[in-house]
């Protein structure tokens, strides 16, 4: 997981949802898995504010 944008999006989600970095990364991973898209794509959408992920620590 060496991608800068994934780390940045992790931080952004953690701030937006008040969750830990580990939980924020899980949110990204969960969305990538359920949407069947690469995690980097999800990260870029989060950074571009094109994608809102579910709130709280809930990983759906």
């Amino acid at each position: 997981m060496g991608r800068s944008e994934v780390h940045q999006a992790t931080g952004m989600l953690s701030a937006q949802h008040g969750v830990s970095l580990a939980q924020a990364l899980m949110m990204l991973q969960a969305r990538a898995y359920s949407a069947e898209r690469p995690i980097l794509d999800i990260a870029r959408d989060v950074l571009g504010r094109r994608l809102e992920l579910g709130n709280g620590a809930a990983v759906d």
Partner: protein
Amino acid sequence: MAQVEHLGEVFVELADTLVKDFDVVDFLHNVTVRSVQLLEVDAAGLMLADQRGSLTIMATSDDRAETLELFELQHDQGPCLDSFKTGRAIVNIDLKSSLVAWPKFAAAACDAGFNYSHAVPLRLRDEVIGALNLFCSTAIPLSPDDIALAQALADVATIGLLQERSVREQSVLAEQLQSALNSRVLIEQAKGVLAGRTGMEVSEAFRRMRSFARTNGLGLSAVASGVINGSSDMQEILSQ
């Protein structure tokens, strides 16, 4: 052609930051920014090998997604990877002629508006620990003097990486490089936290963290930790 008149002051400045409040990620970021200025190229990035030997971005002169992508693609292919594997400088690569050798990388580089690329190795004794990668949108090749200067900048980056502790054993070197890579992750996450809290762009968040670190004589990694665990004065950082 390199801007020789600034050469001395840049190396003095880089050497200075090695002594005072040294922060490895900040230092390497400076090396990339200075590489762009001195070599008159358009983008520079430093790639380091992690413990499994795969290349990871350590610092870049610019944060545009198209540019980051070029460094990230070199996990699999590109001049950085070749320079890292061979320990040699690979310079004056015409990207349009490299579509066969490195299809994804060369296509992405051309799309990003670059014509030439160069990579010089980060060498420590008989080992290669990463590479400095340069991109130009002009079709002006680097002169032999420029290539020597690029290698000198790469050597300065290596010295910076090894500066925090003296490196005698292999295991210590690996640890040191891993710790540098970990700091980089922390700083990326902190940029995201600041951007997420305020709505600003990630590159702007980085600028403010750096400025706050400078003003307060703190390391960038320390500021990033503070942002993440909430102990840094957020208003103070945002007012930079």
